[in-house]
């Protein structure tokens, strides 16, 4: 008898057709996305705040709401990242209450992708798969490579050949079969869609996608719990494929269904999405009121982790932003760099370019008045700046190099008006 298994199957988001749990990402009637369905009444009878609080602080403390048949066998330590009260960034931006959900320090590969990968690979093992893989803009590649290595699974990883060198090296080190594909992420992704079904492998964001995407919900559960079992008024998340923003909202809604947060609180949350101006199909759909996004053929931005021109969940993300009362906005490359630096200088958090995008977009929403300065805001930081250091090249002043002499140090302009304090000898 499994320890927990409240996932009843897969359900098409377009026509509602039900499927047994299997490695399949779309409805064979209309190609609509499949999503995991749960027996919430059964979950409600076994879950409580007290029970969750007794468990270790990682993503599996919400295990009843994740689609595994048994215990996780991959990524048992993932999640449980800090929700940082960001008062210095709040002061710099002129807001009162701001928090950062900091997945830049998620374990083991420093991005939120470890959440989705631990679910997907645990599920792959339940399906008896020995070979896994993904199409990736970088963070997912790192995570699949690392988690597959730790689980002893064979991994095939496909990335665009122009990816940041750091992300390529930080994938290779785990020893997967890494393939650089000449093309955009969307072209890599299409190749993976063909590979997944031809070879029967578990590609986490293709045929395992319904299970994979559920892992993102844990970011939302943690935000609600870390706020003291309540929901914020505004949440800003970066968008690549557009799944995360929807899963955070789903997490809030599930907590409400289960009585873990107050009734009616989900509908008060406004969801906002951030993209780079050089690849903004979802924010463009929001701003121009398009039902379907217009794909971006050739993304052009330093924010490669968000450079998905044809996002699978674009339509749903755009709908959510509009219907929740939120909005979508995009940031230029210089604004993204400025956002990274502002976050680092005020909060000591070095986020990757996607984090800079999110901070830049928050700034724009405050300036335009779309988000009031006196309400509660949570921004989601999804990846670590150490992975995208090359994006900062040339944006900061080079540090001085001096001889190891006091005179040389004192001659530096960086001392400004500071005067050396003459210290009296200590009295004995």
């Amino acid at each position, binding site marked *: 008898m499994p320890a927990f298994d409240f996932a009843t199957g897969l359900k098409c988001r377009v026509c509602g057709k039900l499927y047994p749990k299997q490695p399949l990402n779309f409805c064979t009637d209309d190609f609509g996305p499949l999503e995991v369905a749960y027996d919430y009444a059964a979950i409600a009878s076994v879950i409580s705040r007290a029970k969750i609080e007794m468990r270790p602080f990682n993503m599996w403390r919400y295990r009843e709401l994740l689609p595994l048949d048994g215990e996780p066998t991959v990524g048992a330590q993932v999640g449980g990242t800090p929700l940082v009260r960001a008062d210095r960034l709040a002061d710099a931006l002129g807001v009162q209450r701001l928090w950062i959900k900091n997945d830049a320090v998620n374990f083991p590969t420093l991005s939120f992708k470890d959440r989705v990968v631990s679910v997907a690979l645990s599920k792959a093992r339940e399906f008896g798969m020995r070979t896994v893989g993904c*199409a990736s803009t970088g963070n997912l590649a790192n995570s699949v490579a690392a988690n597959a290595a730790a689980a002893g699974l064979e991994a095939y990883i496909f990335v665009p050949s122009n990816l940041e060198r750091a992300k390529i090296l930080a994938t290779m080190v785990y020893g997967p079969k890494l393939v650089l594909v000449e093309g955009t992420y969307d072209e890599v992704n299409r190749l993976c869609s063909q590979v997944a079904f031809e070879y029967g492998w578990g590609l986490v964001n293709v045929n395992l996608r319904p299970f994979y995407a559920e892992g993102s919900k844990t970011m939302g559960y943690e935000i609600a719990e870390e706020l003291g079992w309540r929901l914020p008024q505004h949440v800003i998340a970066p968008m690549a494929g557009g799944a995360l923003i929807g899963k955070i909202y789903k997490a809030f809604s599930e907590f409400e269904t289960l009585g873990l947060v107050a009734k009616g609180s989900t509908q008060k949350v406004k969801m906002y999405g951030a993209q780079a101006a050089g690849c903004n199909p979802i924010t463009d759909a929001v701003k121009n009121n398009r039902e379907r996004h217009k794909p971006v053929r050739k993304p052009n931005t330093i924010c490669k982790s968000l450079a998905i021109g*044809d996002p699978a969940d674009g339509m749903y993300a755009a709908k959510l932003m509009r219907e929740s009362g939120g909005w979508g906005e995009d940031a230029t490359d210089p604004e993204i760099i400025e956002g990274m630096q502002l976050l680092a200088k005020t909060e000591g958090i070095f986020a990757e370019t996607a984090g800079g995008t999110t901070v830049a977009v928050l700034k724009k929403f405050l300036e335009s008045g779309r988000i009031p300065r006196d309400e509660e805001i949570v921004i989601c930081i999804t990846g670590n700046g150490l992975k995208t250091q090359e994006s900062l090249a040339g944006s900061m002043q080079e540090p001085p190099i001096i001889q190891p002499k006091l005179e040389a140090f004192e001659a530096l302009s960086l001392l400004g008006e500071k005067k050396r304090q003459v210290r009296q000898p200590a009295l004995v």
Partner: protein
Amino acid sequence: MSLKVEIPTPLREHTNGLAHVAVTGATVQEALDDLVKQFPAIGAKLFTEGRLRPHINVFVNDEDIRYLDDLQTAVTTGQIVALIPAVAGG
């Protein structure tokens, strides 16, 4: 024009297991119409009210038809029209 339509694995039950179906037509629309003529069961999977369903992407020799002329994209002999489920990635 005689060309091939590439069928995604989960839909091959409607094409007698064929991965590629030979069709004729001067546009993507005509090529897919011929596919549906040969295998009527696949028609309702691809189209709804005469329009292509939103979660399926069509490629002509590796180019998404949304960047070309959609269903009116011209095709020539020997080309491959690939049908690929859109819900992946991210």
